[in-house]
């Protein structure tokens, strides 16, 4: 089982399961630490997880992981059994978290096909030391140990014997059993033999006597064999057959004694025999009920993300293909009642299917959010700050791809908030704030977007420092007096911006906050920032719920087609000449129900020829984003349809960032339509 190449599926499942367990473990530790002590349930859980990892890793011959898991398992076994009262919870958490980190690193190595060759011996030693101090420190341990011994004694002499059997057995035997080398736990194997033998007779004596509790018994059995003296009515042949059934039997020496001398001799060494131990069988009916409830939650399978990605792509292609069929130019002018009926049915099914596929890909943010607990904890320790992480709306779901993209930006934001935002306890007290700071991580749905908010109650952003820094790095291209707060704050997201002079371990590693904007923009999201001195900073990530398929309105300008996401369209109407206003700067506006909106001529923006110039002849589409609206002027509306968003080709994006474009899509007739980004157009 040791060769890794032949075990690909096993390796996969090992990696998958162990990673999951590790995450579960981390959670459990952080929760325990927060409640400032380990509950018996938590201890048991950690013990079990370590036990499983130990077993699996040993199977895959990742011995370093296995030994480490074993030492942690031992530690928690001690905690579970002896329940020492004075535990240094924080040190314990540190140790286990360090162990988790080690396993994580090794798992990464395994995943990328490298040798898991890290050494955990230093860590294992500290775990052992910790266990040792626990054992010594707990004064009640000694007495507990005794009671435990007594307990196990009670177990030891149970024999399921038939008391009606008489003592007058005729045949006396001596048997010496040698087990195969490497069969492990010889003492228990010996116990099994005795257990089975006592079904036949109750006159049994054996060496070594103390099979279970004495650790040396294994060695004795390995060296000298397991010796049994017993009397029975069975014949030599019967008994030989009995012993041959022993598993991993290497050697059997079975002698029938002519007289009882040897037996009597041996009986002088007194052995306790037979103490009734009642078998406790749990009540069956209760268990049955549990069984039923448990089996109901049995219908989850794991699917690889690759497959889901492919499925999503296929559904995307199908949506395009559907449009190609239904909007096929060949159908123009034909009377096709039943075709349209069938087409509607098809559309309904494809859209349902698409919803389904999307929902499969949705994952809750809770794992990503809870990872932050660990970051906050570690940083607080290092920076001597007191910070509470509050999580709201962790059940909010986003597409799997989105989740991957925001995980790093989120981590960065939390680090920044903790490192730069939250003040030291003394400073906070001096300002009249509570000693411990709070970082709030919130997620909520807003239309087709998910909002993720990272909020701290720290010192807030300092406009002066930001401006100075930006000036130093030549990042300001505008009159500083004209800059709004928002614009100043946004400077921190520019590449090459960092206000911290000293590089700290956590947030200032040369990478600025621009990783946040980059990550979020890569998935079509945006970053909003707000801050008040001494009240704190709020950073909001606005992220589309799903990426690939949107409901869009196709419009035409000249010969070009554009698609506007339906969700951002407020209304569309035929404009009237008298509603159009031109301001002194020559900007066109339109009055709608007493409100004035700017008009954006698409043909002007994208330099399109042969389009309608006269506003009343075309159509106005009002789009809204973040409470701001703009009126887009186009030639005509072509119709609403589901479109598959494709990113603009790399070479175009590299060439120039075209404002107001979110991507492109294929229309039913095979032509390309550019998808407009309403947010980008409004802030043009």
């Amino acid at each position, binding site marked *: 089982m040791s060769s890794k190449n032949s075990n690909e599926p096993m390796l996969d499942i090992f990696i998958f*399961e162990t990673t999951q367990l590790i995450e579960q473990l981390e959670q459990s530790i952080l929760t325990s630490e927060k409640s400032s002590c380990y509950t018996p349930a938590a201890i048991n859980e950690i013990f079990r997880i370590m036990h499983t990892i130990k077993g699996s890793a040993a199977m895959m011959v990742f011995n370093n992981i296995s030994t480490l898991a074993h030492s942690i398992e031992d530690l928690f076994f001690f905690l579970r059994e002896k329940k020492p009262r004075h535990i240094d919870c924080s040190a314990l958490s540190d140790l286990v978290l360090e162990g988790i980190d080690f396993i994580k690193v090794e798992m990464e190595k395994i995943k990328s096909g490298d040798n898991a060759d890290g050494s955990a011996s230093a860590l294992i030693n500290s775990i052992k030391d910790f266990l040792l101090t626990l054992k010594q420190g707990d004064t009640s341990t000694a007495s507990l140990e005794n009671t435990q011994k007594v307990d196990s004694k009670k177990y030891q002499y149970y024999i399921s014997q038939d008391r009606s059997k008489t003592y007058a057995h005729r045949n006396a035997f001596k048997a010496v059993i040698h087990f195969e080398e490497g069969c492990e736990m010889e003492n228990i194997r010996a116990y099994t033999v005795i257990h089975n033998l006592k079904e036949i007779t109750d006159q049994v004596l054996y060496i070594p006597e103390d099979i279970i509790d004495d650790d040396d018994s294994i060695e004795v059995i390995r060296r000298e064999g397991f010796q049994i003296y017993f009397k029975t009515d069975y014949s030599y042949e019967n008994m030989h057959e009995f012993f041959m059934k022993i598993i991993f039997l290497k050697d059997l020496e079975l002698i029938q004694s002519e007289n009882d001398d040897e037996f009597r001799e041996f009986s002088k060494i007194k052995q306790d025999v037979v103490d009734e131990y009642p078998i406790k069988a749990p009540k069956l009916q209760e268990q049955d009920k549990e069984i039923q409830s448990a089996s109901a939650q049995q219908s989850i399978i794991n699917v690889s993300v690759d497959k889901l990605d492919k499925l999503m792509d296929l559904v995307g292609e199908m949506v395009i293909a559907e449009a190609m069929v239904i909007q096929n130019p060949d159908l123009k002018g034909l009377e096709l009642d039943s075709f349209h009926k069938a087409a509607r049915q098809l559309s309904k099914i494809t859209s349902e299917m698409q919803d389904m596929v999307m929902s499969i890909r949705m994952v809750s943010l809770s794992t990503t959010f809870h990872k932050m607990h660990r970051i906050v904890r570690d940083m607080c320790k290092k920076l001597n700050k007191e910070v509470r992480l509050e999580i709201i709306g962790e059940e909010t779901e986003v597409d799997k791809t989105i989740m991957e993209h925001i995980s790093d930006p989120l981590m960065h934001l939390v680090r920044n908030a903790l490192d730069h935002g939250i003040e030291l306890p003394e400073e906070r007290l001096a300002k009249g704030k509570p000693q411990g700071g709070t970082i709030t991580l919130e997620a909520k749905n807003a239309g087709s977007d998910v909002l993720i908010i990272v909020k701290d109650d720290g010192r807030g952003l300092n406009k002066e420092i930001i401006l100075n820094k930006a000036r130093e790095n030549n990042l300001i291209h505008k009159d500083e007096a004209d800059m709004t707060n928002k614009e100043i704050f946004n400077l921190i997201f520019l590449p090459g911006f960092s206000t911290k002079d000293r590089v700290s371990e956590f947030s200032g590693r040369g990478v600025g906050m621009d990783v946040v904007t980059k990550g979020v923009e890569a998935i079509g999201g945006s970053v909003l920032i707000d801050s008040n001195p001494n009240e704190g900073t709020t950073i909001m990530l606005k992220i589309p719920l799903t990426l690939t398929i949107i409901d869009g309105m196709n419009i035409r300008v000249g010969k070009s087609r554009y698609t506007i996401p339906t969700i951002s369209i407020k209304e569309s109407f035929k404009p009237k000449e008298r509603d159009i206003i031109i301001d002194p700067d020559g900007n066109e506006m339109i009055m709608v129900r007493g409100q004035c909106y700017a008009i954006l001529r698409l043909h002007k923006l994208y330099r399109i020829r042969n389009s309608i110039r006269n506003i009343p002849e075309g159509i106005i589409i009002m789009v809204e984003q973040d409470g701001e609206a703009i009126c887009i002027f186009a030639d005509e509306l072509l119709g609403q349809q589901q479109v598959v968003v494709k990113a603009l080709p790399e070479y175009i994006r590299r060439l120039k960032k075209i404002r107001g474009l979110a991507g492109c899509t294929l229309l039913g007739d095979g032509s390309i339509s550019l998808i407009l980004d309403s947010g980008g157009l409004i802030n043009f």
Partner: protein
Amino acid sequence: MKKVLIVDDAAFMRLAIKTILEKNGFEVVGEAKNGIECIKKYKETKPDIVTMDITMPEMSGTDALKIIKELDPSAKVVMVSAMGQDVMVKEAIMQGAKSFIVKPIKEDHIVQTLNKVLET
């Protein structure tokens, strides 16, 4: 072919045991990831032999063993144990487990153990 029910909370272990057993001519009729599931599967599949992990959530292997023995006194259950679980293995033997296998599992050990237990 002898029917086996594999009980282990770790999917990895189940796969490992299953792979070995199927290679050696056993039929794996079911898998369970805790004691409760194991009892349900035992009733459904009526296996010739059960490999039972000891440490499991919901209901441990030893507890499940007790119930299975109540249901079917002739049930053949082989415990799967890690090193150092002596006391628990011993209790299992007392409750009627036929034998045990030690993790990390070795192919010849598990095959030999199951075959021997099935012979009796």
